[in-house]
């Protein structure tokens, strides 16, 4: 799994490529948490390159959502692929996380 970051004026985009599983979720959690810790609380996670997540990945996403919202920000997902979307849906995550079709739409949503 690879994690890269792109900073915008009001938003930080974290792009993830690969599988989010019990081997990699901790790295993702650390990367996302470090942004929240440094005050970058308007976060977008670009999941266009993620084809797999287990519950370990869900824990990373939910932990980040809580941390960002508790500080007045938000954590939004972009370009969720069908397999991962199914896992999010079965877990009830689509009702608490905001999902966007692509990164541009997710970044633009923070301007609202």
């Amino acid at each position, binding site marked *: 799994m690879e994690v890269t970051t792109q900073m915008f004026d009001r938003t930080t985009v974290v792009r993830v490529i690969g599988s989010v599983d019990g081997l990699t979720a901790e790295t993702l959690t650390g990367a996302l948490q470090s942004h929240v810790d440094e005050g970058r609380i308007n976060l977008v996670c670009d999941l266009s390159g993620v*084809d797999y997540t*287990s*519950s370990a990945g869900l824990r990373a996403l939910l932990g980040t959502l809580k941390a960002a*919202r508790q500080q007045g920000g938000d954590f939004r997902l972009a370009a969720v692929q069908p397999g991962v979307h199914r*896992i999010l849906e079965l*877990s*009830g995550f689509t009702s608490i996380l905001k999902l966007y079709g692509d990164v541009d739409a997710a970044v633009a949503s923070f301007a609202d």
Partner: protein
Amino acid sequence: MTHEARITCPARRDNLGSLLRFITDACAKAELGEEDAMAVRVSVEELCENVITHGYKGREPGPLSIEFTGSPDRVVVAVEDRGVPFDPAQAPPADTTSDWKERPLGGLGWHLVHRLMDEVRYERIGDDGNRTTLVKRRFATT
């Protein structure tokens, strides 16, 4: 379409990568569709995670085996260990509906297994073994 394989290793976290590669490879060799392969992989990861984290708590990790049988109409995966007895039917229900503030981190593993698989069977084997059998019917809708 038909493929059989088995792996056994100590139930340690540093073996999770080998176990995940095994199940990914087995699904590919059985020519499982993308959606079904993901369902099987997620379910097997959740079972392995459970055995590695809880199965041998407080003692030296014992064996964890995965037996994969792919046939034209179904995939059957049996996960065995010699850890503490645990019947997945007894797993506490997952919270999938409460507000984000109340939503607990975790507790979704068994929920996903039950939702993604067509059958989940548990049996105690011998004096000290557990076998959890997962069945995924091909072309079935979950």
